[in-house]
Every structure is written in C-alpha cells, then in structure tokens.
C-alpha cells in the first residue's frame, strides 16, 4: 500500500510540474479577487451615488428656490487647505511603451533595483537607486518576478541563480516548493529552512533545519529549529552574515500569524533569544531588519479593525526599544527607519525610534495606492517602496505597480511605473 501511495503521489507530482512556478501567485490571485469585489462595490456605490445625486439636485433646487424667496445672502467659510506631511514624488519618468533595449551598464559594486520591464514581461531590467542609470538586464524564464539579492547582483530565476548579465551561476536544488531562501546582507549567501519531506512535509509535521548556502556551493547546516507541516511553515525573516545572526519565524496554524521566532547565531547555531505567542490571542506579524538587530512584533488584536495595531520593536539583546501604534512591514538597512503599511492604502516611512502619538511620518504614500513591497538600499539610508492602485485594472493576474525611492529626509522619487514585479 505504501508503494502505491508513493506511486500515486509521484504521478500527481509529475502532473503538477506542468503547472510551473506558482511562487508569489497566491497573493496575486487573492489581491485580484479582492480588487474585483472592490470594483463591484464601486459600481454599486456609483449607482447609489447616482440616486443620491438626483436627490441632492432636487434638494439644491429646492434650497435655491427657498433662498431666492427669502433673499438672504449666505456666506461660506473658505475651504481650509489640507496639509499633509507627505513629501510628494519629485520626479515621474515618462510613461514608456517600448521595452528597454540598452544593456544596463554599471560597475559590479553598484547596487541596482531589478524589475520586470513594463512593456515586456519576459524581460528583466535594472535601475540604480539614484535613478540615473537604467537598462536591460536579461530575459526571464517566466513572466513572474525574480528574487534578487539586496544589491541586485544575483537573482533567482526559476531554479537558476543568475548574475546581473543573466548568466547562470548555479542551480537551486533543495527539494522544496521553490526557492525558499532569504538573501543575506552580504548579497552572496542566503539562509534557508530545509526539511526531510521538502515541499510535501508529513501531515504530522517535520523538524526544520536552518542552513546557510551560496550559489554553486554546498550548504552549511546551522541548527535544527522550528517545524513545518501541511498547514504551517518556517521562514527566515533576516539573514545577516555581517552581524552573524538570523531570525527564524514559525507560522501559526494555516500559515497565518506567528507561533514563535528565534534569533540564531549563524557561526555557532546558538539560539540567542526567542519569543513565543499564545495561539489565537492575536494575529502576530514579525519583521526583522536586514542586520537582524531590530525585530518588530506587530499585533492585530482580535475583534478590532486591522488598522488598530500595536508594534513593539526589540533590539539585539531581545529588550524592547520602541513602541509604535502602526504596523511595521520593513526596516531600512541599519534599522533606523521603518515602513508602515496598514493594507488599507496608508503606506508611510517612519522614524520608529522617536515615534510618539501624533508624530509625523518621514514620508506618506500617495492616496489611493496600497503597498506591495518594500526593501532597503544596501548600506544606504533610502527605502524602495512598491505601490499599486487599490483598484487596479485587470491585467491577466498581473498588477502593474510603481516604484518610489524615499530618502531619509522624506524626498521621494518615482523611478519605475507600471511594472508587474519590482525587487
């Protein structure tokens, strides 16, 4: 019977291989589904608004008649200008209808942001953080995004590691559902969690092991930590070779929320400290700075709206060093700035260390756009934030997004428009 079970599973695995790479697709499908419902709601609102407009028109006409009858002039207070602490984008590139043709020409040590060409979804492009140099990098294996390291010098395309010229420099062979690694802050290594069953762990769960690897090299086992099952997973939130530590996060049931996380010393495998959470108490989201020195725990208290959140930031020794009443989704390279996104269209860059109730964000995202991705400039102070319309046009499962780069002074530049995948 066991043999038959394995044969049937193998047959299904072979069949599913034809489906291809689906990494990242879950979020796209859910976002598209929810956006579609938003569109329907918008139509209903328009219909309702149409009726309301007719009523208002009738009311205004009635009021005018009444005012004329009374002949009393009325005064209205001047509309107060709306002040926003937003540093508006200072530059917007001209919309592009053709793909970049010139090869990206920058020195090997210059960090770049990789993105899918808005006009050719099979082409990967790159742009420097100052937006001064952009160009074509290489064709992609799929229409989906790639997974670049922080400096954009290497990236994962399907099961291949490629360099900035598009040359294959290694293959990803760990038996998981796809590349499940987290690039390290040295842009050469990556941390990953592995388990005996790979992408199909036993239903009862399997122990996972943290290991450090580099393209084309054998991985080094660090420590066994966490478990994976059909309904839970373990991920690496930060992998810092320079800081000699990683943050391993264990999801709660159904993959939602967080059960526990560990701060691990990479050279020894020692658990430096850990936090665990009571199941079901609240939804907990854990985000770590690239240097693994700061960790944000954002709790969404059950029964309240998602935008009523509390975040506590913990420092290198595990002591609380800051509190913010906003959800944190990313840190800058040194952890001094953070990106906040409540998933309702309020994206901001904040200085979390000095944050107090009523504090002004360093930068606030444009209205009507929701955050898709945020990542820091390696060894720099800038943050890249990818935003897209809350109600995007349907484009075959692809949501075109814009890339803003925000400086520590709040100055923002829009470097890329309408790309289906950035960073």
């Amino acid at each position: 019977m066991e043999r038959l079970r394995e044969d049937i599973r193998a047959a299904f695995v072979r069949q599913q291989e034809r489906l291809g790479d689906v990494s990242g697709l879950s979020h796209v499908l859910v976002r598209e589904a929810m956006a579609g419902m938003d569109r329907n709601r918008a139509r209903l609102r328009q219909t309702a608004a149409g009726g309301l407009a007719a009523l208002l028109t009738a009311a205004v006409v009635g009021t005018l008649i009444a005012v004329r009858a009374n002949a009393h002039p009325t005064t209205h207070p001047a509309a107060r200008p709306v002040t926003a602490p937003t540093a508006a984008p200072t530059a917007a590139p001209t919309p592009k209808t053709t793909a970049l043709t010139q090869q990206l020409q920058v020195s090997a040590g210059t960090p770049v942001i990789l993105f899918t060409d808005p006009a050719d979804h099979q082409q990967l492009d790159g742009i420097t953080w100052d937006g001064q140099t952009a160009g074509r990098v290489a064709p992609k294996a799929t229409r989906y995004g790639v997974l670049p390291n922080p400096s954009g010098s290497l990236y994962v395309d399907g099961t291949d590691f490629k360099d900035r010229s598009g040359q294959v420099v290694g293959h990803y062979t760990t038996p998981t559902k796809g590349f499940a690694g987290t690039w390290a802050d040295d842009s050469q290594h990556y941390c990953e969690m592995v388990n005996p069953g790979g992408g199909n762990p036993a239903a009862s769960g399997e122990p996972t092991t943290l290991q450090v690897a580099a393209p084309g090299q054998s991985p080094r086992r660090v420590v066994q930590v966490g478990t994976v099952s059909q309904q839970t997973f373990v991920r690496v939130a930060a992998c810092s070779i320079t800081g000699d530590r990683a943050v391993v996060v264990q999801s709660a049931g159904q993959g939602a929320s967080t059960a526990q996380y560990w701060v691990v010393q990479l050279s020894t495998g020692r658990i430096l400290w850990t936090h665990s959470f009571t199941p079901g108490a609240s939804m907990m989201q854990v985000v770590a700075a690239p240097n693994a020195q700061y960790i944000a725990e954002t709790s969404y208290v059950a029964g309240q709206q998602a935008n009523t959140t509390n975040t506590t930031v913990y420092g290198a020794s595990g002591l609380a060093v800051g509190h913010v009443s906003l959800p944190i989704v990313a840190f800058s390279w040194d952890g001094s700035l953070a990106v906040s996104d409540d998933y309702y269209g309020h994206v901001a860059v904040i200085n979390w260390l000095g944050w107090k109730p009523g504090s002004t964000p360093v930068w606030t995202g444009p209205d009507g756009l929701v955050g898709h991705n945020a990542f820091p400039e390696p060894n720099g102070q800038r943050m890249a934030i990818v935003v897209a319309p809350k109600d995007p046009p349907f484009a075959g499962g692809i949501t075109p997004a814009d890339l803003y780069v925000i400086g520590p002074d709040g100055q923002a530049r829009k470097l890329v428009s309408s790309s289906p995948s950035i960073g």
Partner: protein
Amino acid sequence: MGGTLTVTPEQPLRERALAGDEAAFEALITPLVEPGLRLAFSMLSDRSEAEDATQEAVTKAWRKLRQLRPELPLRPWFLAIVANQCRSVRRGRWFRVTRVAEVWPGGKPADLGTERLDIERGLARLPDQDRQALFLYFFLDLPIEEVAVALCVSPAAAKSRVYRACHRLRPHLVEEGV
C-alpha cells in the same frame, strides 16, 4: 494520516473576517490558494483557467464565509468551492474535454517504469470524483475527514472512494485498506 475536525486555531482571524476585515480574510485564505490552484489545475489542466477558477473561488469564499460552520476547518471548505467552480468551468461550452488527456501526457516513456506509466494511465481513466479523492488524500495530504468535506460526502464515503480508486489502480496492492 488521520485527524479529527476541531475548533480551528485561526478562529480570531475568522471572527475578524466575518466582521468584514478584508486583511484578516486575506491572511486566512492566502495559504490555501496554492493547494486550491493545484486542485484546479488537476481538474482543468490549463493554468490560466485554473487561476481564474481559483480566483473566483476566493471571491465566493469571501461572500459565503458566513455559511461556514464554526467547527469546520477552512481548508476543505475552500477546496470544495474550488472543485465546484472547476466543475462549472468544465460544464461550460468552452471547455475542451480533450484536456484531461493533456494533463496526463505520458511523459517520456523511457524515463518511467512500466508500473508508474500504468498508474498515470490508470489515473487518467478514473472517474473525476475518484481522482479528486486521490489527489486530496495522497497529494495534498488531507486527512480523510477533510477529504470528505471537500468532496461534500461523509467520511465513510470518502474513505470508500479512495479505497475504490486504489483498487482500480492496483487491485493486488490494496489488501491492507486505506
């Protein structure tokens, strides 16, 4: 394998989703989308149609969330919606019945043992419901109770369906039962 249906750990998220919190619903449903997509692909054999069916299932899950009994887990319920959506697509006039053959192309015969090739041919010949039962049980590793919810049958019927399908594939290997 095995397991029982219990009150699920994602209950607080469910409560928030029921209260209209889209972020909570997204957190609940996103981990289930890939299994749903794979189930849809196993039934439709076309990636874009599988994506459409799964996306539609997400929409329906959001709308029907109040119909989900609190004691039932979300996963098999969502997979049942996916399966129903796929059946609707297959009933549509645009669906090409020949696609079932495309799902099981036979691959490179030289790379496969005769028995494995027989398994693939056998799976292709199974009734849809039996093949879905095997997919849920053996590929997605759902406990038989969740297979039952996903197929909208009793646990006994789900077990019987898996057993029957296995027997059809390898009559001499199913003596131990499921």
